[in-house]
């Protein structure tokens, strides 16, 4: 972090804004049956506003734990998390979350589900409905507002969950393996949809995944997590320009990045 301060002071890169989010030596130890189980040790990284950062690692390596700490949903056992200059100690306004399962409320219509965050924030009016309809249109679900979640396919439900996560214009979008439960073709579609949404909304996204190609395709930067207790084994800057397309996946450079990530994950020797 000293390094970044120096850069700012020197004004070496005037275009470089101060980091929006910053994790410093973050650790988490869970207490289970009287034993301390370290899940995450010494995680540090930064991201700027509008970045799409992926946390890549095997299942159970602690990347979800980091995401939850970033969302203020669980406390850290050590270290510091800052967002927009404020220390994160609990839930805060302006977070959108997407889980692996759509986790919609089956008793609410699609529109009702999307409107939920605004309703909780006391911002439910005609404008809210218009906005919800616009967002549903953006994800290709125009005309499904009155349907119940159970009438939709898994992919469509996850689109609704995406809409719910962005309707209140969160400053940060936390996504926990959001497309992990979908079939491969739907997943590819959803990857492009997420990039579209990010382009339109300018959202900052922290994305947890165990898919190497998904992480590289989506992200500005990929943080490869080691096995539990997690440390960052490799930080990959992905330099393909946006907008990316399915062609991007077939570039030699893409394969190179996949190889580097695989080696850091320990799946390729």
């Amino acid at each position, binding site marked *: 972090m000293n390094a970044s301060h120096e850069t700012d002071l020197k004004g070496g890169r005037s275009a470089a804004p101060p980091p929006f989010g910053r994790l410093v030596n973050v650790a988490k130890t869970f207490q289970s049956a009287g034993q301390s189980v370290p899940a995450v040790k010494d995680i540090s990284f930064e991201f700027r506003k509008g970045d799409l950062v992926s946390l890549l690692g095997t299942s159970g390596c602690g990347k979800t734990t980091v995401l939850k700490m970033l969302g*203020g949903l669980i406390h850290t056992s050590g270290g510091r998390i800052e967002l927009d200059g404020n220390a994160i100690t609990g*839930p805060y306004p302006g977070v959108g979350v997407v*889980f692996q399962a759509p*986790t919609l409320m089956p*008793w609410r219509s699609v529109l009702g589900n999307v409107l939920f965050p605004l309703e*909780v924030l006391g911002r439910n009016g005609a404008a809210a409905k218009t906005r919800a309809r616009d967002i549903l249109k953006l994800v290709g679900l125009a005309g499904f507002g009155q349907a119940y979640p159970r*009438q939709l396919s898994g992919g469509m439900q996850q689109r609704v969950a995406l809409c719910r996560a962005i309707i209140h214009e969160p400053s940060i979008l936390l996504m926990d393996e959001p497309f992990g439960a979908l079939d491969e073709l739907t997943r590819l579609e959803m990857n492009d949809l997420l990039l579209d949404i990010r382009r339109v909304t300018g959202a900052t996204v922290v994305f947890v995944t165990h898919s190497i190609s998904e992480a590289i395709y989506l992200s500005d930067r990929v943080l490869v997590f080691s096995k539990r207790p997690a440390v960052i084994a490799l930080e990959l800057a992905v330099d393909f320009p946006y907008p990316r397309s399915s062609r991007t996946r077939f570039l030699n450079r893409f394969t190179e990045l996949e190889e580097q990530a695989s080696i850091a994950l320990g799946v390729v020797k």
Partner: protein
Amino acid sequence: MGQNLLRVVYPLAGAAIIVIVWDLYVVVARVPLVVFPRPLQVAQALVSYSAILGSEAWVTALECIYGFLLSMAIGIPIAVVMTYSRIVNLMFYPLLVASQSIPKVAIAPILLVWFGTGMQSKLAMAFVIAFFPVVVDTATGLRSTSPELLELARSLQCSRLQTFFKIQLPSALPSIFSGAKIAVTLAVIGAVIGEFIGSNEGLGNLLLTANSQLNSPLVWASLVVLSVLGMMLYGVVVVAEKIFMPWAAFDTGGH
């Protein structure tokens, strides 16, 4: 459409077979009327006693409905408190479960002493029998709220009340209704037990009176009306479930 029709036709055919076998048995074995009336005699009793059957059924229906509503009105809040207060749960849940080992019929005389022979003792009996499944099913429903939905609520900084009314209670609704369906059936049993122990009105009382007068067609007619009453009350709860949970009509799936 054809499937629906079959679902009506087959049970009706089954019922017809039972009635025919019943009638044949009574005639062939020359069973005395007092012991076992013929189906036609029961039907005749239903018609000729329709006025008194109707008025007594109304009394019993009110006992059931009030007893059922009371068990819901008290059972659901008990479940809520037990779910959200660990101490209350630890102190009283085991006692509540243990109390179910008491045969409820054995409480009836006590309730009679406490509440008299009127409506109140029947209501109390219906409540005592019906409220336990309401408590258990509501508590189960409240505890089964999706942890992710609760996490979503936390990240949106929902208040406790918002979380309860917008997430936990609707999540529990299917369980609450399955408890309600059991409770409404048990409320009928409770009301009839109450009438058996001490009462001067209601279908249970009519049935006992007819029995002591050796009027077996009226006994059976009362029984028929009682079961129709039970089915109607159950049907009302099913309709309420459809109204309150229109989404439940859709199967999960779509993958």
